[in-house]
């Protein structure tokens, strides 16, 4: 199954929701749409599902233009962020409903519903109604209804966003197994960079109605081709600062570090450096590190990592380090980053190295 958008735009009133976009999704496995709220993820999903028509351009399934075709005839499945099930039907009837509408034989329905329910651990609840289930079970019911059809395209619009943390992790781990069907394109919208990384596959980074980069998830994580892409694909937000290159050195306020590898060919100018929070750590992670002495303003501890927001001069930085580090707010600490791990962009936002530019 191939799925593409050709020169698609979506304008509502005077607002442009999607600027001209051409994207060819990977024919199987996960295609993650990653972007903040209002970046255009849901609009893209609606265009793919057929609830909305693009203002211009085409939606193409398997080489056929489906732009004007109803959702009913597109052979797609959809799971929303909110737990949407048919409240008056039992879980069994919910899962069976797309098959019944398609007039599939009763015995076949029975078999497929039970297979799907087993896959999603819903057998115990088949006779209950969705309002009697927990959020996780309701969303699993919605997922079951989406995959029982064995459609060619599965659209997931932030399916885990409304679940509590534990359920989310659990279901996220299971999702790749559940959705592993031959020839199914999965489009998965999320606001969380970590979710994209965990799911793998390919990722399209969206920002204000534009796809800023599309490619294999780990590749675009390690090589964002522009400043916006690096910002979209970073949580906590990526650090960036204006630096100048003078000969063999990069200068940022009082800090100076030697240039590395590929920057040799650049002319002396001002550039933007971007450093991921987890590359700024309280320990030296490499032989040569740049040291930042900053005053800690805010700290966040999660079970496995420590986040510190600190200021140096009038710049703010974020550090994200594995393990537990005790910072006292207001105290000065030394942080390090490895200049090898930095991304450099032109002031215009494009990446300094052109080869990387095409994901």
């Amino acid at each position: 199954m191939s799925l593409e958008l050709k020169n698609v735009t979506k304008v509502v009133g005077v607002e442009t929701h999607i600027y001209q976009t051409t994207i060819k999704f990977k024919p199987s496995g996960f295609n993650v749409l990653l972007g903040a709220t209002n970046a255009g993820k849901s609009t893209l999903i609606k265009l793919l599902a057929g609830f909305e028509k693009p203002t211009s351009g085409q939606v193409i399934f398997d080489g056929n233009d489906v732009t004007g075709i109803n959702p009913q005839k597109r052979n797609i499945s959809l799971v929303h962020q909110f737990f949407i099930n048919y409240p008056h039907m039992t879980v069994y009837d919910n899962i069976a409903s797309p098959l019944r509408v398609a007039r599939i034989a009763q015995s076949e329905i029975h078999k497929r519903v039970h297979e799907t329910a087993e896959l999603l651990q819903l057998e115990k609840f088949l006779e209950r109604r969705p309002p009697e289930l927990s959020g996780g079970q309701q969303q699993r019911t919605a997922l079951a209804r989406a995959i029982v059809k064995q459609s060619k395209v599965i659209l997931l619009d932030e399916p885990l966003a409304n679940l509590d943390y534990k359920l989310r992790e659990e279901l996220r781990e299971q999702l790749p197994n559940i959705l592993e069907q031959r020839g199914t394109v999965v489009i998965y919208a999320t606001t969380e960079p970590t979710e994209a990384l965990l799911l793998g596959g390919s990722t399209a980074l969206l920002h204000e109605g534009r796809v800023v980069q599309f490619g294999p998830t780990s590749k675009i994580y390690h090589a964002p081709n522009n400043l916006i892409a690096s910002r979209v694909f970073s949580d906590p937000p990526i650090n960036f600062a204006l630096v100048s290159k003078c000969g063999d050195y990069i200068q940022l306020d009082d800090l100076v570090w030697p240039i590395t590898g590929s920057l040799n060919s650049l002319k002396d100018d001002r550039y933007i450096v971007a450093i991921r929070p987890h590359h700024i750590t309280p320990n030296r992670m490499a032989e040569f590190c740049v040291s930042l002495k900053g005053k800690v303003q805010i700290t966040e501890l999660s079970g496995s990592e420590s986040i510190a927001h600190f200021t140096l001069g009038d710049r703010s930085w974020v550090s994200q380090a594995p393990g537990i580090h005790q910072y006292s707010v207001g105290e000065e600490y030394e942080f390090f980053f490895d200049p090898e791990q930095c991304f450099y962009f032109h002031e215009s936002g494009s990446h300094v190295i052109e080869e990387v530019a095409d994901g």
Partner: protein
Amino acid sequence: MKYRRLIPIIYILFLMLPIYWLLAMSFKTTNEILGGFSLFPQRWTFENYYTILTDPTWYWGYINSILYVSLNASISLIVALPAAYAFSRYRFLGDKHLFFWLLTNRMAPVAVFALPFFQLYSAVGLFDTHLAVALAHCLFNIPLAVWILEGFMSSVPKELDETAYVDGYSFPKFFVMIFFPAIKSGIGVAAFFCFMFSWVELLLAKTLTAVEAKPIAATMTRTASSAGYELGLLAAAGILTIIPGAIVIYFVRNYIAKGFALGRV
């Protein structure tokens, strides 16, 4: 502090008193009612009820009322369901104004419409039919039903519609098989309100009918003036008029509050 409980009790007694009085009267003879003051019927009689249930001029009043009320509720719902769906799901030019304008139809006294309806229905030959009353009552019941249903429909997420389309339901199938059950309490409440207003409305019903479709409320008032004072009979008719309302309200008792808030809770 213990007197505090007395307040609601007194209030309820105060509310129930006229209904009790009506009930007591319906078991008395007219002579006893006119003869003096008594809390209970001295001589129980079922004669009044017997007359109503056997005399066609009486029981046809009930049948007529029930006929046009049901007709009105059906028409109102059939018209209001698609209208409410449109208001709830689509944006179109002037939708908010139109929606508000609907409600303003309820703001004029019914008497204003009595004359035009009378003239119009006489001209087209609808006078003294059940349909005439049912259609006239649509004037204020359809806007109400639209408002109530719109509230209930808007509390069903739009994503339910989308999910059903993706699952392969056509629009009519979705509407009947998925959407109807999802708003069935709303439909019940809207039907109840249509019933209630149509059942208690007297002026239009009386003006637009003569013999064939004469409602019970009209029968009651006319009997009082023509055949002398048949107070016992009237009381029994009153009790029988309350009963359908009580039965209908029982079925929607859990949703009435939401209905009074026009589905917006």
